[in-house]
Structure formats: structure tokens, C-alpha cells
């Protein structure tokens, strides 16, 4: 391993190659990570606010209402961040398999701990969710604190795996310190606190944007009266400004913390990210208190997240360059049918059925009482069932023809 890390890194690539051009996986990896981290940050922010609001609930009824809303938001957020985390991890394993698998094996026990702490943390959050009522006892907040603490621990574990995967020249030292092999996978070997804390700190601006959009979303509901929505909006504005101010120094720390051998171009997205955060803070300050701007601000939050996702990848590309690891060298064995399967599923099922669900939830949540689907929603619902039925039919007909071809040895 010591002899030629780069050669071995390339040897560890899966010999089956990949079924489409590497850039495609790289693009999908970055894009899906944006969706994942957006939900991570909003969820952490909502969870933290729900706890704070829970302990402040006796000061004003708005805190109670907000705590319940944020608890529910965090509950749904965890489900979505888990499922949205699958895709970037999948695409990472396609083009950076040696890095991901080695980093995972070297801290294998922590990977298992991740699973069980996530389950315990989520169950704990559910206990808090079910018990977060006006008459709830203060000590029930401990369930929320436990949940949030475990979510942060899980975030740290994922950070460590990502960071360890950037340091192939250290792997052997971690696996066999002083020549003594350690197969327990019991340690977290490398943490870059600047990177971890910066990313976590973004949960404050993310929460702020969520609150601003939340205040706009419920503008038609009488059970979320204007004074409550104004309270939420002002709170969001304050958290947004303070959050950006906290995130910026952490971002500069991360920039300074990057290894010296990385070229200037590796730093560029980081500086752009700093600029985007400053602009975001100004926009939150300017527009945050105005009703009707919440969605605009929420979607503008995707710009810094996109830059951060891009920056992570630029850092990885630069970190791998000295080892001669370039994803574009990966052997490609193009597999058109399965590529088509994915993109048609993404468009047909994700687009139509996913669109139906999101639109239905969005509109139903805006009205009090029963929601009667309009024509668009009704058609989308019918189309969802038809498309799913069609997908399953094609799946079986196509599969059966291949299966028969195998059976008759043709």
C-alpha cells in the first residue's frame, strides 16, 4: 500500500466497470446530495427550534404552536433526509468505490452504530412528537434532546466517512498502526471540525428560510392567525441573519483548513459560497419581513447549497489528483436498458406520481376542512395509477420474454 497508493486505488475499482459515462454519475451525485443536505439542514434546524420553543412555551402560546409544528416538520424531515440520502451514496459508490468502501470498513463499527442510533433517535423523536402537547411535562423534552443529539452524532459519523475517504495515504496507518492489524473498525480516524461545524451551522439559515415559507404557506388558514405568522416571520428573519453571521466565520475556517497542496481553483467555489451566504443574509434582512416572499427566499437557499455540493466535489477531485485517480478513466460498459429504466422511472413515477403527491399535500394543507381535488389533481391521480400499472405490466412482459429466452437457451 505504501508503495503506490494511486496504483492500488485504481486497482480497487470494481472490475465490472460502470454502465454509463462517469460524468453522469458525478452530476447525479452532486444534485441528489443538494436535495439530501437541504432536508438534513432544515430538519436539524426545525428539531432545535422545536426544543427551544418547547421550553419557552409558557412565555407565549405562539411558542407552543410553533414547537408542535416544528416537531412534526422534523419528524417528516428525518424520513425524507434518509431516503434522499440513498441516491448520493449510491452514485458515490459507483465512481468513488475504493474511497467509500475503505473508509467504511476502517470505521465499520461506527457504521453499525449509525444505524441503531438513528433508529433510537428517531423513535425518541416520535415519543416527543406524540407527547408535545400544552399539558406535557417539561422532562419530556429530554426525548427531543436525545433525538437531536443522536442525529448530530449520525451526522458526525457520515462526515468522518466522507473525510476519511479523502485520505488514502493514511488508510494503512489507520488499519495497521505500527504494523499491528486492527480489524475491529472501532475508531473514527479523522474529523475536520471546520467542515463539519460549518455544514451543521447552515441549519440556522435553512431553518430561517423554512420559517419564512411556512408563514406564507399558511396565510389562508385561520388556525394560523396573522399575529402568529408575523411572529414566525420575524423569528425566521432574525435566525436567518444571525445564522449567516455564525456560518461565515466557520466557512472561512474551513477555507483556511484545506490542505496546502490544493490548488487555488479548489478554493474558488468556497469563496463563491461565502459571497452567496452574504447575499442571502442581505436578502433575508430586506425581504424577510414582507409577506409573500417566503418561497422565493426558500428556493434561493438552493444556490449556496448547490455551491457547497459543487465545492465538496471539487475538493474531492483535487484531493484524488495527486494519486492519479480520475473518475473519467473508469471503464464504461454501457448498459442502455437499465439506464432507460432509471430515467423513465424518474420521469414517469417521480414526475407524475411524485408530482401528484406533492401537489395534493400542498393544496390539501392550505385549506381548512376537506379538500376537493380540482381537475388537475384528479387527472394526475388517475394518471399516477395508470402509469404505475403500465410500468408494472412492461416490467413483467419484458422480463418474462428475457426469462423465456434464457429458458430455451436462445
Amino acid at each position, binding site marked *: 500500500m505504501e508503495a503506490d497508493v494511486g496504483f492500488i486505488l485504481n*486497482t480497487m475499482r470494481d472490475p465490472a466497470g460502470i454502465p454509463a459515462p462517469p460524468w453522469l454519475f458525478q452530476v447525479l451525485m452532486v444534485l441528489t446530495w443538494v436535495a439530501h443536505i437541504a432536508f438534513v439542514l432544515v430538519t436539524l434546524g426545525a428539531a432545535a427550534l422545536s426544543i427551544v420553543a418547547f421550553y419557552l412555551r409558557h412565555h407565549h402560546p405562539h411558542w407552543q404552536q410553533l414547537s408542535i409544528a416544528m416537531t412534526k416538520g422534523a419528524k417528516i424531515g428525518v424520513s425524507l433526509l434518509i431516503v434522499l440520502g440513498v441516491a448520493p451514496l449510491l452514485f458515490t459508490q459507483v465512481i468513488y468505490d475504493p474511497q467509500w468502501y475503505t473508509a467504511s470498513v476502517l470505521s465499520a463499527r461506527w457504521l453499525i452504530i449509525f444505524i441503531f442510533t438513528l433508529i433510537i433517535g428517531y423513535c425518541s423523536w416520535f415519543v416527543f412528537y406524540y407527547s408535545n402537547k400544552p399539558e406535557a411535562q417539561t422532562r419530556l423534552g429530554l426525548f427531543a434532546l436525545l433525538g437531536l443529539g443522536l442525529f448530530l452524532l449520525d451526522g458526525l459519523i457520515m462526515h468522518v466517512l466522507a473525510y476519511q475517504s479523502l485520505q488514502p495515504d493514511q488508510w494503512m496507518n489507520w488499519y495497521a498502526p505500527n504494523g499491528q492489524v486492527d480489524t475491529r473498525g472501532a475508531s473514527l480516524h479523522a474529523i475536520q471540525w471546520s467542515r463539519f461545524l460549518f455544514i451543521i451551522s447552515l441549519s440556522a439559515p435553512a431553518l430561517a428560510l423554512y420559517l419564512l415559507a411556512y408563514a406564507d404557506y399558511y396565510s389562508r388558514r385561520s388556525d394560523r392567525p396573522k399575529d402568529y405568522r408575523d411572529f414566525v416571520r420575524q423569528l425566521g428573519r432574525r435566525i436567518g441573519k444571525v445564522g449567516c453571521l455564525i456560518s461565515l466565520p466557520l466557512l472561512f475556517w474551513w477555507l483556511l483548513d484545506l490542505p496546502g497542496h490544493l490548488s487555488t481553483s479548489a478554493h474558488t467555489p468556497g469563496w463563491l459560497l461565502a459571497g452567496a451566504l452574504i447575499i442571502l443574509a442581505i436578502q433575508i434582512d430586506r425581504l424577510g419581513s414582507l409577506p409573500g416572499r417566503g418561497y422565493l427566499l426558500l428556493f434561493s437557499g438552493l444556490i449556496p447549497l448547490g455551491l457547497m455540493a459543487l465545492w465538496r466535489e471539487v475538493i474531492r477531485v483535487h484531493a484524488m489528483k495527486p494519486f492519479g485517480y480520475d473518475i473519467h478513466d473508469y471503464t464504461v460498459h454501457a448498459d442502455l436498458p437499465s439506464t432507460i429504466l432509471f430515467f423513465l422511472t424518474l420521469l414517469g413515477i417521480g414526475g407524475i406520481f411524485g408530482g401528484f403527491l406533492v401537489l395534493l399535500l400542498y393544496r390539501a394543507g392550505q385549506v381548512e376542512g376537506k*379538500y376537493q381535488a380540482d381537475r388537475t389533481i384528479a387527472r394526475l391521480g388517475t394518471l399516477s395509477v395508470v402509469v404505475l400499472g403500465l410500468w408494472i405490466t412492461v416490467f413483467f412482459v419484458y422480463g418474462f420474454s428475457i426469462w423465456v429466452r434464457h429458458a430455451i437457451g436462445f
Partner: protein
Amino acid sequence: MDMLGMYPTFYVPEIGSAWVMGIIGTIHVVASHTSVGAAFLFALLATKAYRESRPELMDYVKRYGKVLLVFSYIIGSVTGVGIWYAITIASPRGTAGLIHNFVWVWAAEWVYFTVEVIGVYALVYLIEKVDRLTHLKLTWAFALASWATMLLIVGILSFMMWPGNDSWYLTGSTNDAFYNINFFAHLGVRTGSMLVMAVIVGLMIAGSMREKSPALRIEAVRTIVPMGILGGALAVLMFFYYLETLPYNAKVMLHSHLLPRYAAGMVLVVTITFIYFLAAWAKPLFLRNWITVPLFLFVAIIGVWPEERTRESMRKPYVAGQYIYGNQTIARDVPGKGILSEIEHISKHGILGIHPFIPETLRTVSEENRREVGELLAKISCGNCHSLEPGSPLRNLPDKFHGSTDVELIAAFINGPLKNGSVPYMPRIDLPEQETYAIATFIASQNLGERNRPSMPVDTTQSGATGEQ
């Protein structure tokens, strides 16, 4: 000398990494199958409620859905990722092989998984919140999407057993890998089982709704129980078909080791579940959770756990497509993908020569480091399927050699059946003599016990197994 793309080794004393995988896998199968099966029960009940204008049936769906959210969608989704992590650390190369063959299939499953998670919230929270026809469409779409996740994963799981013909080896096409010989049989078993598990949980929900009207409970139970019986019948039927689609090594393993241990339990699970379903149908109001909850655990522990262990064990020595061994070695050529067998290369250079993660101090065997080298080689070559501590539960190697401390005897097995690959369910491990004796020395020393190690009376000098060769 050319290195091979091996990864570091993760080893869990006593139970190996296989049991970690099995435990997480069992929890996941129970949770995920229940949720997919429940989606169809919901669709059935929602259709009945809509057609017969019986909105009270949706109370039952709502109660069940809330339980499902907590039970299946928290535990199911997290353990789904958990299985992935567990196989990653237990068999990184096997996992990489699957990912690189099926990435787009997994990505398509991810699309379904995402809409499923959004869908379950919509399904539960929009009951009586949106008009009934829209909700009915949502319920059916959700059921179909849930089943689609199963359709996609079963193809990959079936390929892990084997493709069943030469097509995939020659073409490398995902189509040929996915629609393999035991795909449909495997799908039938899982589809049937999911209904059985969902009905058992459904009976728990009915049993906990004693404040509701007897008519509602009777209606709900009598609607879902036939689905459970039909599902069970399908699962049993397809299981026998599934057995016919297995490769030779799996059948040997099944008949020699697995059926003698698990068959009685499986028959018991089927029989008791069937009787309970009949009793529930006949007397729905007498449902009691002190019976249903233990039944659910009984099915999970005596039914699902052995099923998962059996499927894992039958695949051996392979972990994917009969081309990657559990010990990370590529066992055969796959011309369609340009993959070459590594067995001859290892035979020629040994693991010590080709494995990137061997400390330099252990690359050459000496009298001083023989046991240490043997331990590392045993973990690399055997640790995926065997624990290395005497008396431990995962097919432990010291006991497999009947506690022998005879290095020659142990080495003879490695140099005989293992070297020639003549045990159907074990990998062909053809190592240079010094590595064989290092492993044999380690196993013998394990049988001698910890307290004997400092003055280990193991004589390997007569075997010619000195480090200088």
C-alpha cells in the same frame, strides 16, 4: 507483482460480520414486507369503503397506517440503509460488484422509495381530509409503488444467488442478470409472505380497537384474513418452486445443513399461522394481542430469521452471481464485463503478495510472525463465513476441525479439498504452502487455548513450513 483490488477486513469476534448482516436483514425484511403487504390491504379496504360508502372502515386504515409509519417506515427505511452498510463492511467487493451491475436498478428503486415515503404520509394524514375518490387513487398508486420496490430489489437478491445460465457472463447485460432463473419464484415467495406479515399486524391493530364497534372490527378482520391465507398459500407454493431453481452448491448446503436445522420450525410457522388466521376469521371479536404479538415475533424469529440465514448460507461460497466469493476473491471470468478470475493469481503469489492491506512486516512468514500472519489470513479468507473463536456460534473454524491442535491435519484439509475446490459450498482457496501453514498454525493455536500460547507446543518445522521458503 500485480496487486488485486482487495479491501481491508472487518471482523466481529464470535459472530462474524454475517450475523450482524443477518440481524439487520431480518428486522428490515419484517418491517418492509409488512409495509408493502399493508399497502395492498389498505387499497382493498379503501376500495370497499368507497364502493359501499363505509367511511368507518377508514378508521381502521388510519390506525393501522399510523402504526405502520412508526414501525415500518422508521425501522424499515433505516434498516434498509443498514443492510447496505452491513454488506458494505462485510463484503465490500461483493457490494461493489452488485452496485456496478445494478446501479440504475437501485436508482429506479430509490425513485419508488422516495415517492413511497411521501406517499405514506399523504395516505395517512389525508384520510377524510381529501375527497374519497382522490384518496382511493392515492391508496392504489401507493400500493403499486410499494410493490414496485419489491419487484426491483428481488431481481438483485436473486442474482446474488446465481444468474442460472451463461447469458450474463457472456453479455454482461443487466437484463440477463436481473431476470435470472429464480427471480419469479423468489418474487412469489416474498409477495406471499408480505401479505401474511401485513395481516398479522392488521390483526394486532384490530385487537387494539376494542373501543370501536364490533361490526367494524368484524368487517376489517374478515376482509384482510383471506388475503393472508391466499398470501401464505402463494408463499408456500412458490417456495417449493424456488427450491427447484437453486444451484447445485445451494442444494447441497440446504439438504446437508439447513433443512435438518430449520425445516421443523418453518412447518410450525406455516401451520400455526394458518390456524390462527382461520380462528381470527371465525371469531374476529376474540382477537387478543397477547396472542397476536407473540405470533408476530414467532414468525419473525422462527420464520424470517432462518429464511434469511438460509438464503445467505445457500449462496456460499459466493456472495454475488456465482462470481465473487465471500472472501472477496473473484472466482471466475466474466467475459461480458472483462472480469478475470483471481484464483490462479492468488495461487501463484499468495494473499500476502497481492493484498494491498498487508503490513510489510507480515508479507513474509517467519517463525515469529507465523501465528499472527495466520490469524490475518484466516480473517481475510475465512472470516466472512466463519468465526475464529472456539465455541462461538458462527460455524467456528476451531470446532470445525474438532478442536484439533495438529497443524499437519489442518493443513491437509486446506491443501486438499479447499485447494481443489471440491467442497461445493466452500470457496476454492489455493495458497502457497507457507500461507497454508500459517493459517493451520493459527487454528491449531486457537484450539490450544489462550493460556497455552506462550509455550505453544506446535511443531511445524517438520512440515517444511518455515518462513524462509
